[in-house]
């Protein structure tokens, strides 16, 4: 009886594995592909090394501006003006207060969602804005700092945070109003508001808030410039949030509404316990998307005369001993915005996975 022995498998041919194969398959498969690859390499070659040289290797990191001899970025400008970029005109001795708020916020964002007790969650959500406001503005024994001194990245984050937090409940109410088919008047009011706000640019709403809003109130009521901008931004953001949440509400199967009614829940019980948790979960990606746009849109407050971090570039450049440093300023601010927006979009993916209850 013949004994058959298995021959050992031959290694795959060198043309179908390894680096050479990958290169051939992904970069040089056809002639047009090869041309594109070469073009891409040329593009990278002409942009990346000069950019790196400018930003890092030829850059000036220390010393005074009279000593600058290198061709690259003069980061000494950013280092010199760093405090202004971060805090605007906030008194230097009190910088610990915004810093403390930042630390509190990080704790808030990362630890509160992990708490199991709903009561503690609720109380901390109510306390957090109050504590932050008192820390930044002063009062209760702390020295008061007027809003005209707030600026820089602090103001940018503050405007974005207030816009996000304040617009959220308004947005939910607007979305529910727009979905309430048995109340035509409420529905019309909500649709009118949402479509009006979404139809005009934010800058006109900010102009409206800063110029027209004071006319709406009798003389005794004075509005702070920052408060006016915040009102405009909140109304603007609420309309966009409403549309995002409406998308989530529409995605909930009708059976869920019927089931909550047949359990004898009232409208609000049904909404809060059954519908909204599901609708909000579905909306998370789009909600974060609209938060990112809002964060980018906060730059517009510079047009109505607030000093956010972008406005600080122009302002620090008008310092006569530091003229001609726009590029460094703009690049620094660009990096900051980019890091914030990019990490927000990554964070949304994390959250999406955490709340994903699909099996």
């Amino acid at each position: 009886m013949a004994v058959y022995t298995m021959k050992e498998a031959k290694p795959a041919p060198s043309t179908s594995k390894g680096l050479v194969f990958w290169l051939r398959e992904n970069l040089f498969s056809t002639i047009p592909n090869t041309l594109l690859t070469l073009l891409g390499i040329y593009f990278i070659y002409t942009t990346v090394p000069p950019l790196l040289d400018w930003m890092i290797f030829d850059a000036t990191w220390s010393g005074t501006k009279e000593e600058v001899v290198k061709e690259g970025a003069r980061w000494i400008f950013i280092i010199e003006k760093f405090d202004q970029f971060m805090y605007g005109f906030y008194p230097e001795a009190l910088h610990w207060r915004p810093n403390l708020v930042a630390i509190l916020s990080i704790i808030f964002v990362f630890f509160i969602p992990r708490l199991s007790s709903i009561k503690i969650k609720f109380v901390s959500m109510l306390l957090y804005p109050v504590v932050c406001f008192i820390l930044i503005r002063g009062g209760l024994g702390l020295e008061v700092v007027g809003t005209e001194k707030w600026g820089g990245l602090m103001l940018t984050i503050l405007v974005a945070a207030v816009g996000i937090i304040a617009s959220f409940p308004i947005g939910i109410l607007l979305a529910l109003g727009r979905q309430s088919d048995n109340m035509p008047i409420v529905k019309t009011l909500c649709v009118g508001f949402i479509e009006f706000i979404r139809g005009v640019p934010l800058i006109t709403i900010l102009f409206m808030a800063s110029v027209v809003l004071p006319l709406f109130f009798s003389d005794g009521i004075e509005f702070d410039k920052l408060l006016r901008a915040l009102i405009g931004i909140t109304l603007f953001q609420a309309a966009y949030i409403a549309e995002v949440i409406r998308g989530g509400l529409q995605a909930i199967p009708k059976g869920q509404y019927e089931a909550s009614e047949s359990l004898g829940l009232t409208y609000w019980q049904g909404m809060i316990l059954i519908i909204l948790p599901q609708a909000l979960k579905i909306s998370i990606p789009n909600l974060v998307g609209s938060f990112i746009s809002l964060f980018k849109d906060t730059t517009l407050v510079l047009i109505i005369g607030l000093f956010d971090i972008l406005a600080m570039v122009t302002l620090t450049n008008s310092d006569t001993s530091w003229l001609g440093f726009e590029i460094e300023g703009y690049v620094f601010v660009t990096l900051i915005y980019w890091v914030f927006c990019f990490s927000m979009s990554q964070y949304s993916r994390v959250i999406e996975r955490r709340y994903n209850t699909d099996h």
Partner: protein
Amino acid sequence: MNNSKLPPTSKGLFNSPQNRAIIFQVLSLAVVVLCIFYFVNNMFDNVAKRGITTGFSFLGETAGFGISQSLIPYDDTSSTFLDVFIVGLLNTILVGVIGIVLASIIGLMVGVGRLSSNYLVAKLSLVYIETFRNIPILLQILFWYNVVLAALPSPRQSISYFDSIFINNRGFIMPDPIFESGSGFILVAFLLACISVVFLAKWATKRHDLTGEEFPLVKVALAIIVLAPLLVFFITGQPISAEYPALKGFNFKGGITIIPELLALIFALSIYTATYIAEAVRAGIEAVPPGQKEAAKSLGLKDHVILRKVVLPQALRVIIPPVINQYLNLVKNSSLATAIGYPEVVTLFSGTTLNQVGQAIEIILMTMAVYLVFSIVISLLLNWVNAKMEIKGR
């Protein structure tokens, strides 16, 4: 059965959903009306107290300030505020149209590049999208205007191409076409060519339906549209010439000048909006099930036919609605021109005119009305497109 344990059904006013709905609506309407009444009342008080005139009569007054770019004849001694409004409106439309065309081209290229089988191209497209969509548009506009365009040389050291196109820190200067008598014929020829192409397309479709024979429509149509006006151009003795810009003193005279504000705005808007269009294109192409492509391939269709007749029609249904929304966003974002002083409707009207006249309510409402009209037009367009592209079931 014992029903006595059940709670008594109450027939109160508040227990019927209909009644509750009515009460709630009346309450909310009352709140809104009261608020509006309060605001309007205060507004009239305040306006009267500050001595601001009301109404739209200011539109007929002479404006008396110069505008750096105008598509209609504008003159700072006699033109009215209404003219200012129209100049701003036209400039907004100009930015919108150029920006939309450029953003579509870049967006399409990057979106297709994102799905390229070429690893390097796909990654470069990804880097482009992630970089530019995460930087605020206002920052990009300011960067182009204050850093890139400000670094261009002065008029005397302009970068020039063929001695007719000049680039310097006053803008981009190119020859101005001059239409002499007879140039009307060229326009007529162009229009006739367009009309004949429409009929040709109808005939080609009909023939394709009847016989299945393909007609090279795109090539023939292009040839007709380009060749017919060109032929007339030479027959009528070349009635279009150009006025070339020339350096006189410190600046250029003649030619068309594209001001740096417009350049900065267009670069920033189209690069920014293109990232969103690219993502829409990518999502649309990915939404076509791969089976469609494979089925078409197994029918023996060529690659370009598959793209044109199988993939694109299905992808466009997904791509077009978000892209149209991005067009609206681009037009709304063009209002940021006010940060660099490009004379469009917000800069001219909510900025300069408001400073001179002081009638904030009328002026801001008019500005908002412009954008509201734009968004209504665009949403009508969107509805029309959606209705047209709807999958027609039998």
